[in-house]
Structure formats: structure tokens, C-alpha cells
């Protein structure tokens, strides 16, 4: 009886600890919300325009985040996941569009506009200085000045 009890106890002990070891060797892949959001914040769902995927509360976006979780668990990298979404839904899902085609204007026009603004501001400053300090004093001939003064006096008398 004791032998039977001892044998059962050994079997239970061995089975318990070996199964624990096995589960410890192959832990289920865990993906944190932070990992998902790090990718989601760089994506936009076309349904919810102007709302980044990490903060969007619609069911469509929830499904997308679920897909990111799935891909991360499968070992996809951030870039691979972003590329997957581009392949599925087009370039417009990216927060920063790729610099090609018309998109290139997004990267060229703002810096050019800023440079043009700085240059214009500089020009205004320079021109302003020049007008404050007259470069040359233009001499008015004294005969003209006398004629002007007499006309002015006459005008004042008539009033």
C-alpha cells in the first residue's frame, strides 16, 4: 500500500515538474501594448482621417492594432509591419509619406517657404535701415526755397 502511494507520488511529482519545465522552455510570445503603440502611432487608418492608429477608438482601428500584435508575435519587424500595411492599404496609412511622386512636395515646399521667408525678412530689415538713414542729402537751390516760402505765406494770408 505504501509502495503504491509512494509510486503515485513520484509519478505526480515528476509529471508536475517536467510539464512546468516544458512550459518554461516555450513561453507564449507576449507583445506589450507599448510595442504595438510604437508602430500604431506611425500609422493612420483611412477611415478615421487625422486620428493616429494608437489613439483611435473605432472597431476598424482596433482590428488593425490586433493585426500589429499578431505580426509582432510572428516575429515581424517594425518596418516589415509598416510595409505590410502600405501593401494592403496604400501609402496614405503612413504618418510620414515616402518622398516620391507628388509626396516629394511635402518635403521640398515647407523648407523652401521658410528660406524664402527668412530671405524676405532679411531684405525688409536691410531696406528699412537704408530708409531710416538717408544716404544723401539733396540740396534744394535757395531761389526755389524763397519762391516756395513766399507762395506759402500768400496762401496763409488768403485763409
Amino acid at each position, binding site marked *: 500500500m505504501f509502495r503504491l502511494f509512494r509510486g503515485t507520488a513520484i509519478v505526480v511529482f515528476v509529471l508536475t515538474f517536467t510539464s512546468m519545465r516544458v512550459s518554461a522552455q516555450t513561453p507564449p510570445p507576449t507583445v506589450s501594448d507599448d510595442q504595438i503603440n510604437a508602430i500604431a502611432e506611425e500609422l493612420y*487608418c*483611412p*477611415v478615421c482621417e487625422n486620428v493616429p492608429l494608437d489613439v483611435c477608438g*473605432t*472597431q*476598424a482601428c482596433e*482590428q*488593425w492594432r*490586433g*493585426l500589429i500584435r499578431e505580426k509582432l508575435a510572428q516575429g515581424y519587424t517594425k518596418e516589415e509591419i509598416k510595409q505590410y500595411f502600405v*501593401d*494592403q*492599404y*496604400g501609402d*496614405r496609412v503612413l504618418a510620414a509619406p515616402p518622398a516620391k511622386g*507628388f509626396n516629394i*512636395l511635402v518635403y521640398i*515646399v515647407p523648407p523652401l517657404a521658410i528660406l524664402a521667408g527668412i530671405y524676405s525678412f532679411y531684405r525688409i530689415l536691410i531696406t528699412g535701415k537704408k530708409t531710416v538713414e538717408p*544716404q*544723401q542729402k*539733396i*540740396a534744394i537751390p535757395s531761389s526755389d526755397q524763397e519762391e516756395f516760402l513766399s507762395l506759402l505765406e500768400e496762401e496763409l494770408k488768403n485763409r
Partner: protein
Amino acid sequence: MSDQLTDQSGKLKSLHIRPLWGKLLIWFGLVAFLIILGLALLRTQQGGMAIGDVLPNLTLTTFDGQTINNNDLTGKVVVVNFWASWCKPCEQEAAELEEAWRYYQSTEKVVFLGIAYVDTEPEARAYLQKYQISYPNGLDLGTRISDDFRISGVPETYIFDRDHVLQFIQIGPFQSLAQLKAVVDTYLGP
């Protein structure tokens, strides 16, 4: 480029003149930018497809792996339905669309195409299974098809006659099977 002028006191005065090519370049750049901006604005405000428009060139890869394009639809009434698994109103018409498809399938004069808009594949497949949808369905890869149709949301259904001219647009779900059949019958002919 600079030029020199003489003022009344006889002193030389320097005059700075911007070169002509510089002015032209600035104006050309501005005009080109405004044209691009205008075209983009026009495109976004173009609105949806209108009755009388022709079926856009489409290539749909179905969940079964088939590829369907315009050549496969020649001489048939085409019913194009945009849907999504996350779209609740789409569920209202899912069963009716399937029933209508089964009704017309044997005639071989009508084609139903389901296009999953901004959807994820596992959820889209689950949706099709839930409503036992058997007509060709596929993901709108790169949102190319929905862009060509200029859809405003889901569900939306476009019905083209046998010459592939758009005859009917349903924004939102069909109210009944009878409504859907009445429209298809109109363009099916004898």
C-alpha cells in the same frame, strides 16, 4: 545685375535690379505649385461616381485566390458591393446580397463582386463565413478600387448594366431583397 543713376547733386547712386530669369523662376514655381494644389483640391472635391459613368478598370484578387478583371465581366450586369467586417450597417444587407446572388447565379447574366474596404483578412474571412457569402469577394488592396469608385463610405453598392454603364447607386444598405432584385431585373433585360 546692378545699374547706376545720377541724382540731382551729381553723385552716383547704385540701383539694384533683380535679374529677369530669377523673377521668371519664382513666378514659374509659384504658378506650378498653385496648379498642383488646385488639381489635388479638384480631385478631393470631385465627389463620387455618377449615373452614366463607365465601370472603372478593376482587378480583384478574391479570398479564393482568383483574379477577376473587366474582361471576365463582359456582357453581364455587374453588382459591386463595398463592405467591411467592422461596418454594422453592412451586416443588414449581407444575407440579402447572398440570396440575390444565389437567385441570379444560374442565369449567368449577373456578377456580384464584394470588396472589403480597409479590412483585415482574418476578420473579413470570418464575416464571409458568418453570412455564408459565396459570391467572389476580396480585399481592396491599396484601396485602389475604392479610390477609382470614389466611395464615401460603406456599405455602398454600384450596379452597372450589361454595357458596363453605371445605372444605380445605393448608399447605405439595401432595405430588402425585393428592392435589390427590382433594380437588377431592370437592367438584366430579356
